[in-house]
């Protein structure tokens, strides 16, 4: 993308050419681009799996899939979306934007950067191997495929064949990749800021990534430890999670959710950071309450680390323990509420225009608030005993994660696409994409609340006819939601090919910050001499 303008680089070597440019890349922009392309491929892969799930559930009866294939797709949809789509996309944006925003010439550890990206395709390969293992590889045992859901709870996960081992390997590789990327981001932010760029002057996106990176380093090793114990139980005769050998199946759940709950914030925070860039730009007004946003994030991180067991209210903890987890969980609404409030206050008395990134930002505020409120409902244990493992939960976390994480990334893509490619995207098509996408999303997930309340469990391949109507609606919505992404791909390809109006350096009228002082697209090397921030 940024090959066209290398004229500025005469004092430095230019972009390498051919495959070496990508495979050996240590350039933050190229690696960022590769992250984003990888993430989009995984989004399509995970999306196709989601549409397969909804196609199966459109009517009662088993029309397309067998139970194990269905369960396997449910499992891999989650893993691919979380580890393949959302996290790499956020990491791609971090790679692209953090050095530009803080006035650094590149990431602090460029070779590590290369490694943390190239581990991802390896992980994707082993994940696909895990899916295909039951059909391609014969290890002499019956292999149902990973039919456990992404939470891979033992004892069920101990009974699965070799496909589970491939999945455990995949999780390890992904974990290493995430930790390396997190280390790189922390080192970059703490060491490579331009003179005058104090911590509190850093753009919100940089702040959110700093917190995210610390969270990743804190929780990824716990998941890695958990799945390693699972691997030992499966092959080396230990009984960490086997009650018959003196172990405890619930221990795995605690380890998993000690990772799993903070992981939600790992997915969410970079997108909150994008919101913190987009809303002030299109409201033409400074971010409201930046200090309190940063403090809220820190509180959110700490609270996020100590409320994990609200995912397991039904495992039978003592009354005191569950009361603690209930109150802790409800308290999360304080930092999140303050964040949402600050964004609304940024819009308030601004002069708003409604380009695609801003539409997504407003969509996030409205729909994420809704997802957050069902989260408060879920925290209340007596009622959660009804919601737990029902479609209500499925609806809730998709309302939290699609607006909270995915729409933040979409806002970021449209916000920075002109900067990355040097071309304005087609605003009309962008708006069309927003409306079909948001319409499809709501049609998919809103009816699922009712299904859950009426008693439909999650992760079932077939359901009683009483649940038909809302499932039909949900499936139709999911097809609209899924297919709308072709439009997004088309819009991006048009920009990459250099079609469309040329973007100015500042791109957006209200845009402020170092990244908007660079040309669009920025040259291969930027900020070789650090700017001074006043």
């Amino acid at each position, binding site marked *: 993308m940024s090959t066209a303008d290398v004229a500025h680089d005469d004092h430095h070597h230019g972009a390498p050419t051919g495959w070496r440019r990508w495979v050996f890349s240590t350039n933050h922009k190229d690696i960022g681009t590769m992250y984003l392309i990888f993430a989009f491929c995984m989004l399509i892969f995970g999306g196709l799996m989601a549409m397969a799930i909804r196609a199966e559930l459109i009517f009662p009866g088993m029309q397309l899939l067998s139970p194990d294939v269905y369960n396997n797709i449910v499992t891999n949809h989650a893993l691919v979306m979380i580890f393949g789509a959302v996290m790499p996309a956020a990491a791609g944006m971090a790679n692209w934007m953090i050095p530009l925003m803080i006035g650094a010439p590149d990431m602090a550890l460029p070779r590590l950067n290369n490694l943390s990206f190239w581990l991802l395709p390896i992980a994707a390969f082993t994940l696909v191997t895990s899916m295909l293992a039951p059909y391609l590889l014969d290890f002499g045992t019956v292999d149902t495929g990973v039919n456990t859901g992404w939470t891979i709870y033992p004892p069920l996960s101990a009974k699965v064949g070799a496909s589970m081992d491939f999945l455990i390997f995949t999780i390890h590789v992904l974990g290493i990749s995430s930790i390396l990327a997190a280390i790189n981001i922390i080192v970059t932010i703490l060491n490579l800021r331009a003179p005058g760029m104090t911590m509190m002057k850093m753009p919100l996106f940089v702040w959110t990534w700093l917190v995210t990176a610390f969270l990743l380093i804190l929780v990824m090793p716990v998941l890695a430890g958990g799945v390693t114990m699972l691997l030992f139980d499966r092959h080396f005769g230990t009984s960490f999670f086997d009650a018959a050998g003196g172990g405890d199946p619930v221990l795995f759940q605690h380890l998993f959710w000690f990772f799993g709950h903070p992981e939600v914030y790992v997915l969410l925070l970079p997108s909150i950071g994008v919101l913190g860039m987009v809303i002030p730009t299109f409201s033409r007004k400074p971010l409201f309450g930046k200090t309190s946003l940063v403090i809220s994030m820190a509180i959110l991180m700490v609270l996020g680390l100590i409320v994990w067991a609200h995912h397991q209210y039904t495992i039978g903890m003592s*009354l005191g323990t569950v009361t603690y987890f209930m109150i802790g969980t409800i*308290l999360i609404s304080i930092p999140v509420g303050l964040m949402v409030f600050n964004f609304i206050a940024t819009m308030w008395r601004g002069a*708003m225009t409604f380009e695609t990134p801003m539409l997504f930002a407003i969509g996030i505020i409205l729909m994420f608030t*809704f997802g957050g409120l069902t989260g408060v409902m879920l925290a209340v244990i007596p009622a959660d*005993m009804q919601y737990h493992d029902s479609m209500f939960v499925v609806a809730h976390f998709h309302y939290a994660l699609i607006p909270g994480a995915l729409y933040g990334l979409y806002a970021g893509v449209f916000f920075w696409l002109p900067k990355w490619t040097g071309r304005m995207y087609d605003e009309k098509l962008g708006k069309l994409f927003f409306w079909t996408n948001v319409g499809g999303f709501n049609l998919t997930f809103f009816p699922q609340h009712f299904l859950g309340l009426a008693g439909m469990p999650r992760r079932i391949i077939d359901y*009683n*006819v009483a649940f038909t109507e809302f499932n039909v609606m949900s499936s139709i919505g999911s097809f609209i939601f899924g297919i709308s992404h072709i439009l997004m791909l088309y819009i991006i390809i048009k920009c990459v090919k250099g079609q469309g109006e040329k973007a100015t350096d500042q791109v957006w009228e209200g845009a402020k910050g170092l990244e908007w002082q660079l040309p669009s697209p920025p040259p291969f090397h930027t900020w070789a001499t650090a700017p001074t921030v006043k």
Partner: protein
Amino acid sequence: MENGMKRLLSFAALIGLVISTPVLAEYGLNFPEPATPVATEIKDIHNLTMIISTVLLVIVFTIVFYSLFTHRKSRGFEPDQEFHKGTFGKWSWVLVPVTVLGVDLTIADSAQSVLEKVWIAPNEEMIEIKVVGHQWWWEFVYLTEGGVKVESRILSKKDLADRGQPENLYLRAVDNHLKLPVGKNVKFLHTSDDVLHAFWVPALGMKKDAIPGYIQETWIDGIYKEGIYRGQCAEMCGTKHAFMPIVVEAVSEQAFATWIAEKKVARDKAIAEANSNKTWTKDELMAKGKTSYDKKCAACHKVDGSGGGPFPKLAGSPMATTGSIADHMNIVLKGKGVMPAWASSMDDLELAAVVTYERNAWGNDTGDVIQPKDVKASR
């Protein structure tokens, strides 16, 4: 699917009409009608948090939409660059958390008494039922009623037709109901024989996981009225997770006592038969074996032993023909991979019958006859 289409069409027709409450009730927009006082309280808590959430949502939407329509560039609104510096800007970081905390505490406070009530069963005499999750059926043991045991398995569409029950109950109907007397407190002790399961009947308003090695308790404080309450397994338990429904049948105290008495007689007869030390003929074992096989094994291995998917074919398989009886018995007793262990849920006679049947049915014709005492020896 046809049934689904019919309902869909009727639903589409309804959208055109004014939506009235009875219609909404039919399509399940909220929890089902609670069947016990505790479930009623739980539904009240749910309604309260839902109302609070809705009010907050309306407030947020109103403010955002007001701003969207008023503070826009196209209307010539000048941005207020000093907004964040005013009194409101200075103190909002205190105001907002305090307000949210107030809402939070209201919710937590109203939930606490219900939580305490549902979480710990009162220390008094009540009917106790052990609920054991199996792949993929439920076992209910009436501990306080002399250990009467009920095994509960899904009814296929054909079973429903044979029993004259409507097809639309498929996935919500079982062969043997969990019978409970109305108006009595009942304590459930949840555990599992293999992987995680969860006993969930929405109208009873509680759910806990069945975890191997754990015993967890839930309780209900008296079902209001006689009737059928349906639910299903709510924790991912493998291939047939969608196919293990639960049906609770609330009956009068009188009817419950009679039913328990009948169950005891039947059970004593079965125990006497199994312990009779008699040498069974092949035909007797084959007949018993077919009954048990069709009920317990055919869900995966199929009635004709043809298997499918991850479940191995038994007809003509080396395991059930040329392989040794000991190995065959071992797999049935202890399980293997996806196959659950049956040692604890079948007695010697039943196991002998099933293995005999598997080694002689569908053209396997080994002529092997396994006696209960052989099973006892290989346990």
